[in-house]
């Protein structure tokens, strides 16, 4: 267990009294990318939001051996949890520079890394984030998480709605980032999962129904058909 950076046991989450995560348990290793797979609406996003305390949650969550399930969201993040939300959630009326400045938690944020990964953002630093393209907004969102030395990143559908070329760019950035920080990645694009993820967990009906190596899960046609509702070869590449 000591190799795991994040453990989740019997996590149950609800939104406005409605249970959205039934009983989820899994562990995230301290290196590499762990993918969270499952059909739409099974509670993948809610699991991430529950870990962060953005929605009501019960159960046990530990980060590097310490319980974080009783902490308010900002304290969870301060412990070293970076979050790249679904739909990017950049602050539209703030500039790119302001979006990034808000995310800086440490005295020496890793601005060079961000500038190197996303040179576009440096050029557009004074532009309002709401006027950026979807891909550029995703870069802002990813950059916000990479500015700090996090212990883990929770990344939610980073390629959703992006053009194939931008998908590749975002995947490149995530692959590079994953060399230094472990990642829990919710992703529907199975080509991206295949390329990035080492381990994978599959959620169905609000519970974890399968865990294993991502490549093995994706290679098992029956499993992917049954649990994810897709044929890897035909339906995966977005």
């Amino acid at each position: 267990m000591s190799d795991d950076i994040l453990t989740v046991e019997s996590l149950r989450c609800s939104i406005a009294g409605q249970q959205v995560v039934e009983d989820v348990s899994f562990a995230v290793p301290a290196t590499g990318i762990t993918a969270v797979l499952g059909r739409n609406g099974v509670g993948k996003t809610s699991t991430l939001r529950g870990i962060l305390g953005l929605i009501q949650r019960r159960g046990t969550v530990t980060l590097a051996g310490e319980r974080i399930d009783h902490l308010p969201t900002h304290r969870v993040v301060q412990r070293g949890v970076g979050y790249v939300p679904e739909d990017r959630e950049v602050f539209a009326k703030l500039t790119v520079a302001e979006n990034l400045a808000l995310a800086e938690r440490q005295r020496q944020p890793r601005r060079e890394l961000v500038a190197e990964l996303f040179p576009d953002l440096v050029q557009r630093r004074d532009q309002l984030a709401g006027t950026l393209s979807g891909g550029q907004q995703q870069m802002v969102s990813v950059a916000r998480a990479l500015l700090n030395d996090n212990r883990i990143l929770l990344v939610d559908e980073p390629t959703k709605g992006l053009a194939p070329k931008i998908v590749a760019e975002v995947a490149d950035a995530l692959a590079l980032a994953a060399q230094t920080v472990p990642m829990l990645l919710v992703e529907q694009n199975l080509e991206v999962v295949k390329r990035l993820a080492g381990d994978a967990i599959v959620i169905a009906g609000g519970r974890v129904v399968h865990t294993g190596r991502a490549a093995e899960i994706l290679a098992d046609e029956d499993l992917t058909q049954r649990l994810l509702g897709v044929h890897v070869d035909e339906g995966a590449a977005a």
Partner: protein
Amino acid sequence: MSGIVLVLVTGMGLGALYFLVASGLSLIYGLMHVLNFAHGAFLTLSALIGWEVAQRAGAGTWGGFALSVAVGAVVGAAFAAATELVLIRPLYERHIEQVLVTVGLSFAAVALFEGIWGTDAVTIAGPAWLKGTTSVLGAHIPNVYWLLMVSALVVLAAIVLFLRKTRYGMIIRAGVENRSMVTALGIDVRRSFTIVFAIGGAAAGIGGVLAMHWYTFVSAHMGASLLIFAFIVTVIGGLGSLTGAAIASVLVAVLQQFANTYLGGTGDLIVVVLLAVVLLVRPRGLLGRTA
């Protein structure tokens, strides 16, 4: 011509007063989704204490006046910050309870003020210039209106600078847009709640001291009547939009003054009709966001 100029300028001056009250309401609602019914109490207490200070420092002098404005701002900020810390914060995320507790505070505060300062309005004095007029295109504009306009512009500029140039201002702007994402960046957004209350309270406090010079009296009830128009202005401007509040303040007050002068004193009615029209045609207000 001089009549129109008089109505226009006094309307803008009255709008400045509305803005001083509405700016805080709008900021607080934008960030916290709380309609603060206690805002009038912040204003009233600032005026009452401001008047106490002015009397001791020399009510007819500019020094005494300036001191009373400064004290009014501090009292308003302190009362508002204490309200947020003691009453609002324990009810975090419970918006209806938060609104109800401000309603309760507004009643209790007025009763307390009546107990201390009495139920009658007290006539006040100020620097002689405030009672004079200045001629503009033949219209004799009471000087207190200039003071209201300049003060509101200074307060608007100060709030805008704070929001644009400071980290807390940035957090507040981001929080108005998407509060949960601010916390997901590791920021304790609750600290900025206290700050917006304090800023709103300070603006209302300045408004309170100036309002008593405009009314030429101070009473335990002065906050309540101004608060109604400030709410209307906030809704018309678009809840949460400072610029919207500024534009709506002037719009509402000028319309009100014109109706009062040229439509047989129907100013208050016209304002309520305008509110109804805005709610029907554009429920999010002039510059409000879509919900």
